[in-house]
């Protein structure tokens, strides 16, 4: 498959949206565009599997290279491995759901959808790029749309949150930039990921560059203690904004931590692994405990994201193939789950005009569909088997357990403990919103989900279930890629 299609389709959709006449057109165009993206993602998955089935074991498939800034040896170098394919699928899923739940946006519809599509574009570009410069370009491209989405269409302290998000993410990318430049010169003036992977980078450089890259990408994926943009950003963002933010953007960081930092700088990864593990174990538990005290549904999900994303980072830090696979599964799972979670919160908010847990109750009665979805996503969050969260967490834990020493064990157990705390806060949230008596008589008039919301929810639930019930297809996609990464780390 020609990977450029993944860029061209969203780009054309975005341009078409800009040129369209009214809000109705904008919505349908975006919907059709994101449907096309979804189709492309599936085609990509299919062709990828086909290609692998023919015995093509190259690390990257469908490679394409167009020179760009030749004098600096930059080129548009695209290619995908299992990880990218999965991430692209995730992006497509979240994109279409995001488009659907925003159906009722009245204010500046055109701009809203344009920015959403731009965010999607950035993510696709990021996941297929094999040139660090281009990768960085796509990473950065998504920062400003996020800022605008939160600042313009957000709620609450939106300007503050938008600013914090943009600045922290920019801070992260500043570090990434320095790291990338470091790699560029060490690797003999090349930004090419596959080229750099072939060179042996001196240990002392790795010790400098690895933390830069890891922390930089870590900011994007809410590495403790650089996660504080997450609660504010998510809670202020409009529904689709939160979905994209948590569902896709945070995954950019995780992907970068793995694909760029860990993969390219194995010595650095080994050196700093313990710090990463400690930080992410703290994040997992601490995020979970902080979540317990939240009263706003969006804050609950935002903090729980910190906790869940901790699993991804923990998996990466553990440096075993299973743990890394688990980290990747967790990224996908969390992407879908949290997008769905935000979608549900958005739906509830649209109706009740509150996100405060204490003000709700008994929503099951008035909006059974939404409440059911809320149940499903909550159960996914607390790692119920049959839903994606379980698969991811278990894979990480099993992978982590392979490190046979007290430090790793303690970290693993700490991470495992979060499943209890998660249960506590998720059930509290569910019990107080969906269950119990109805506290506000006005709620009795509320309607259940509309078609677009149902469709969005069903798409995401389908994703969650497909991973939760039959996880091996995902596992088989990710494992070989993780193995290549592990081989480099192990020095093979």
């Amino acid at each position, binding site marked *: 498959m020609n990977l450029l299609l993944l860029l061209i389709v969203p780009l054309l959709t975005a341009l078409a949206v800009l040129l369209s006449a009214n809000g109705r057109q904008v919505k349908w165009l975006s919907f059709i565009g994101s449907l096309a993206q979804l189709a492309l993602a599936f085609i990509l998955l299919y062709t990828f599997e086909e290609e692998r089935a023919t015995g093509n074991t190259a690390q990257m498939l469908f490679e394409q290279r167009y020179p760009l800034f030749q004098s600096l040896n930059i080129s548009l170098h695209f290619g995908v491995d299992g990880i990218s394919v999965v991430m692209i699928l995730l992006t497509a899923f979240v994109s279409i759901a995001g488009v659907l739940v925003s159906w009722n946006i009245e204010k500046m519809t055109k701009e809203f959808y344009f920015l959403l599509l731009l965010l999607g574009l950035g993510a696709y570009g990021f996941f297929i790029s094999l040139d660090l410069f281009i990768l960085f370009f796509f990473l950065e491209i998504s920062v400003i749309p996020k800022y605008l989405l939160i600042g313009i269409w957000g709620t609450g302290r939106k300007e503050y949150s938008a600013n914090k998000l943009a600045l922290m993410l920019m801070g992260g990318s500043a570090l990434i930039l320095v790291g990338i430049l470091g790699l560029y010169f060490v690797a003999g003036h090349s930004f090419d990921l596959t080229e750099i992977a072939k060179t042996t980078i001196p240990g002392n450089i790795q010790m400098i560059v690895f933390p830069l890259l890891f922390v930089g990408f870590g900011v994007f994926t809410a590495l403790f203690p650089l996660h*504080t943009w997450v609660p504010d950003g998510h809670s202020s963002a409009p529904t689709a904004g939160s979905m994209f933010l948590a569902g896709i953007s945070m995954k950019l960081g995780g992907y970068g931590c793995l694909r760029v930092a860990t993969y390219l700088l194995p010595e650095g990864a080994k050196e700093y692994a313990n710090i990463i593990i400690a930080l992410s174990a703290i994040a997992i538990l601490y995020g979970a405990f902080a979540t317990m005290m939240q009263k706003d549904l969006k804050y609950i999900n935002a903090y729980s994201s910190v906790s869940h994303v901790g699993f991804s980072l923990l998996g990466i830090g553990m440096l075993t193939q299973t743990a890394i696979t688990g980290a990747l599964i967790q990224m996908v799972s969390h992407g879908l789950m949290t997008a769905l979670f935000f979608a549900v919160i958005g739906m509830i908010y649209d109706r009740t005009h509150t996100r405060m847990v204490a003000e709700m109750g008994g929503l099951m009665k008035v909006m059974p569909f939404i409440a059911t979805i809320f149940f499903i996503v909550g159960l996914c969050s607390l790692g119920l088997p049959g839903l994606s969260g379980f*698969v991811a967490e278990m894979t990480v834990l099993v992978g982590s357990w392979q490190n046979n020493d007290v430090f790793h064990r303690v970290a693993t157990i700490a991470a495992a403990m979060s499943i209890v705390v998660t249960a506590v806060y998720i059930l509290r949230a569910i019990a107080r919103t969906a269950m119990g008596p109805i506290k506000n008589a006005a709620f009795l008039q509320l309607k259940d989900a509309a078609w677009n919301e149902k469709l969005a929810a069903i798409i995401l639930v389908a994703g969650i279930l497909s991973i939760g019930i039959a996880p091996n297809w995902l596992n088989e996609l990710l494992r070989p890629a993780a193995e290549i990464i592990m081989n480099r780390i192990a020095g093979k």
Partner: protein
Amino acid sequence: MPNATIIALIPLLPLAGFVLLGLFGRKVFRNSSGILATVLLLASTVLALYTAYEYFFVYGKVDSIYQKFIPLQLTWLEFYKGLSIDMGIYIDPISVMMLVVVTFVSLMVHIYSLGYMKGEERFPVYYSFLGLFTFSMLGLVLASNIFQIYIFWELVGVSSFLLIGYYYDKPSAVAACKKAFIVTRFADLGFLIGILILSFCSGTLDFQTLIQRLTVPGSSEFNTAVSYSFMGVSAITWGAALVFVGGAGKSAMFPLHIWLPDAMEGPTPVSALIHAATMVVAGVFLVTRLFPVFAITTPNTLVIVGWVGAVSAIFAAIIACTQTDIKRVLAYSTMSQIGYMMFALGVSKYGGEAGLGFTASLFHLFTHAMFKALLFLAAGAVIHYVHSNEMKDMGGLRKQLPITHITFLIACLAIAGVPPFAGFFSKEEILLAAYQNNIAIYYIALITSGLTAFYMFRLYFNIFWSKPYESHGESHHGEGGFVMMLPLVLLAIGAAAAGFIPFGEYVSSDGTPLKSNFHLQFSIAPVVLGLTGIFTAMWLYRSQNDRPAKIAASLNGFYKAAYHKFYIDEVYVFITKKILFNLIGKPAAWFDRNVVDGAVNLTGATTQAISVGIKKIQSGKVQQYAIYFLAGVIVLAALFIYVWK
């Protein structure tokens, strides 16, 4: 050989029910949902009985030993070559026995609910949840892989959660379902870590392989498992003990039992199915599954199992004597009986005659499923009639509810261990096993046995005798009709006759049939104790009098403590509210908002402050600008002429 398709269908049929009713229950199967689910489950039950027949009487026994079969195994998630979660079917006497129990009790509950839950708004939802539960429970008992058990373990947990919270607008139900889920989740954490330890030591998740590798002294895996130790205890012991923690949570063993009484907030048939007959014995089942590993651990994990079981048994029995909510009494009695099963396992050994406790435990599991389900369903009929759970609202109901009365009495006799009812035989074996291995536990069991008879008959007399029934508001609908009475009768037959099954012939720790030898002189003590309990209860409660109150008063402190369930709930509340929330959660949230976030904001504020602080540099005075200019030149010149030369 076992037929994989047929066995696979047993759990899949209820699953189909769940999916169909879950997706279309509201619209398509509005009225037929109960029938649909029941029919599916009936099919399941028939298949289960067929499987059991085939296994026990046709192909199961080879060389007079019951074999283990894995007719189906699919890779579900492969962590790396050799370590994968498989979805499989594991056929051995235990799982086949459990298949029968689960499908049978579930079927009874399905039928019963047709009457009991009639008219409920969320009728289809109820049946879909029941389907989910039955599927999960069957998946659990059929599991061939330790992770598969964990998966279904969680799924039964969630179905239990959903069913307890079925009346979601009742705050107490909501609280109860939350509590049940969280407490068992906490226990599952132990289970999970146990799995991680065992799988790491053995390099597999497959039961058969795992047991094989870990029970052969001298094998490399066994050596690893024994040589690694933490706090002086070997890895294998840790593994087994932590797995047992999971089992204890699910089976409501002390001190993880607090969720079970509250779980009675669910509809009564659900309590019968999940919280009496099937799910709560999953802990016992789990220990039997890994029994060889438990048996080989040093220090012996089974000692823990035994003592936890014994303590739970007597502890629950004492509390049960004081409760007034009939379902709570039954709940504590369940806990007590499971305690029996547990310590039976605890006093057992692996293989041969020494495995008597093992057989006894499962035998008791089997009979208990019958009579406890019956008790609950009968209690359900009573509650259905009275619209209250409290003993004080009942009394003299034997006229109004004749069938219920008789079946309830049978169940009470069975649980009290009066021959020739089912409970007598199974308890007998348990006591024998305890007597042979651990005399302290034996005495505890004996006392418990007496208490059991007492509180059961206290219940019985309070409901059906005591005082003449005065009805409030005449809206009564009789006993509930055929659909509710049929299960009662069927289960009563089971409760009465199940004891005559030569259980040891079929189920034993290592598959070799165990002759059940009967010791008449040995059974005198428990039977006498049981009868004493019964007559005491009769003396106190047959008609209204002030004797119970006097006794309660004379036992003042102790009675109060027992009435308040020994304040275990309060301890938990303290731990969660005070420690978890106030000491960890709050500071974490505060720390995040003020320190971590504060640091970020402080960075911003500092930058701003510096920005304001240095604004004087731009003074607007052109001569000052020139001074800076000159200073710049001089500093640079000095720097590069003197310092960096």
